[in-house]
């Protein structure tokens, strides 16, 4: 492991200033992904700026009925928070479907969003990877593809974003608050991560020294039911093959409002806008759910090793909507 310096940031502006002054510096949150990458040689920053003790650890109700989640709130605290469990069960479910109790106790909200793909080739420095070593090629295109993308990939990179939390936040229309050298800005969570295109090394639209300070969750529409459903190779403690976060409002048998995000299938939390459009205003029936899922997945470009994900994503989405349409609001 390359030697690095360590500084504990005293405040947000100090953290941003430290990174601004050093192009080789990186923010350190809970460390559950970054420390592993330091050891594997995936990244080699010269300075780690510890932001995990910044006073961004609160979960606060907003005046509009939403909730603000600070960037250093631990995943375990967020999942257990009464306000989150009451208003956004899908977010609590997604967090608890991810990682293990030990990891959730360390991992932060900001760090969870900025965690990197678990593509085996990205993590193995002995293999080509355009995300880790630009221009070296993509070993996954002719390799192990089970965890790779069927939507949004490019000839340069087919890695998936591994977060469960971010998928729920995408379905909740979350906004990300960011502080940078030029001040504060906000962006939709669905605009935070980018598709690989021909620059797969850029996971997000954030510039160097931009720090996530909070995530805002807007209030859900009245009568909304939510659900996170994850399909994986073992019952617990595994990344998603496919996951679905859904928010559904049914009135008089028709879909009044619907938001859907898919995980495990794309380089970013995949907001299923095609399916949403197909569903809105129509009858809340299984046949319609299936048509909408198929419309969304018409754009899928599976690889030989992950073609199973197309029917798996379709069936998981249909099952999730069917469940949400069937019961009482929660």
């Amino acid at each position, binding site marked *: *492991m390359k*030697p*690095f*310096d*360590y500084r*504990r940031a005293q405040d947000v502006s100090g953290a941003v200033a430290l990174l601004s002054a050093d192009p080789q510096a990186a923010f*350190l949150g809970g*460390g*559950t992904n970054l*420390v*592993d990458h*330091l*050891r594997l040689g995936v990244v080699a920053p010269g300075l*780690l700026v*510890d932001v*995990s003790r910044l006073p961004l650890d609160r979960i606060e109700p907003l005046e509009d009925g939403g909730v603000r989640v600070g960037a250093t709130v631990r995943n*375990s605290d967020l*999942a*257990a928070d*009464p306000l989150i*469990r*009451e208003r956004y*069960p899908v977010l*609590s*479910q997604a967090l*608890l*479907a991810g*990682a*293990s*109790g*030990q*990891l959730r*106790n*360390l991992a932060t909200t900001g760090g969870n969003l900025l965690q990197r793909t678990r593509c085996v080739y990205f993590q193995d420095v002995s293999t080509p990877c355009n995300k880790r070593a630009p221009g070296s090629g993509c070993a996954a295109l002719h390799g192990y593809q089970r965890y790779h993308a069927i939507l949004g990939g490019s000839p340069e990179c087919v890695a998936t974003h591994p977060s469960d939390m971010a998928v729920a936040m995408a379905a909740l229309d979350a906004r990300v608050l960011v502080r940078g050298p030029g001040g504060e800005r906000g962006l939709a969570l669905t605009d935070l991560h980018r598709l690989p295109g021909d620059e797969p090394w850029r996971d997000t639209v954030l510039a160097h020294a931009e720090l996530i300070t909070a995530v805002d969750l807007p209030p859900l529409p009245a009568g909304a039911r939510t659900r996170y459903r994850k399909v994986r190779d073992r*019952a*617990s*403690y595994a990344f998603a093959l496919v996951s679905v976060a859904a928010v559904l409002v049914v009135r008089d048998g028709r879909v009044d409002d619907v938001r859907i995000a898919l995980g495990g299938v794309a380089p970013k939390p995949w907001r299923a806008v095609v399916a949403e459009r197909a569903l809105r205003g129509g009858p809340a029936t299984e046949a319609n759910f299936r048509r909408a899922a198929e419309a969304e997945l018409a754009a899928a470009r599976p690889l030989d090793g992950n073609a199973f994900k197309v029917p798996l994503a379709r069936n998981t989405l249909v099952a999730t909507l069917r469940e949400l349409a069937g*019961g009482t609001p*929660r």
Partner: protein
Amino acid sequence: MEADITLRVNRETRWLTVDTRTTLLDALRDRLGVTGPKKGCDHGQCGACTILLGGRRVNSCLALAVQHDGGEITTVEGLADGPDLHPLQRSFVRHDGFQCGYCTPGQLCSAVGMLAEARAGWPSAVTADQEGPVGPGPVALSEAEIKERMSGNLCRCGAYAAIVPAIAEVAR
């Protein structure tokens, strides 16, 4: 690059100078001679290195020592009260909750943290999947709950069939 840090390990204050690259696991094992936490995968995938940090269970292989300067740490060595084993340790012995024993220090620390989480009303994927309002009181730990909440601790010997009842007995 080096840093001077202080750790409270099993109720004892320890001062040490560490390379910034040192994890808590390596600091405990190689610098302080506290070899209860085990290095299994060293990637946060097996749980053998689990310790309690500020009372919460964490993977010590993924935590940089310098980041946790001043941290309050309990390892398996600190679970017993003098000659009296922790109730979970006694239960593991009674139920034969191990074979080779390599994962046991992590299983024990994880179980201590997990029981505290359940007492505090923290949900799990099993709880969260239930319909209707849940919490905020303590969570009753069914076999399914224990398996889900302990999924971050792998046992290559497959002693789960004894580990789960050992924990369940203390959880009751």
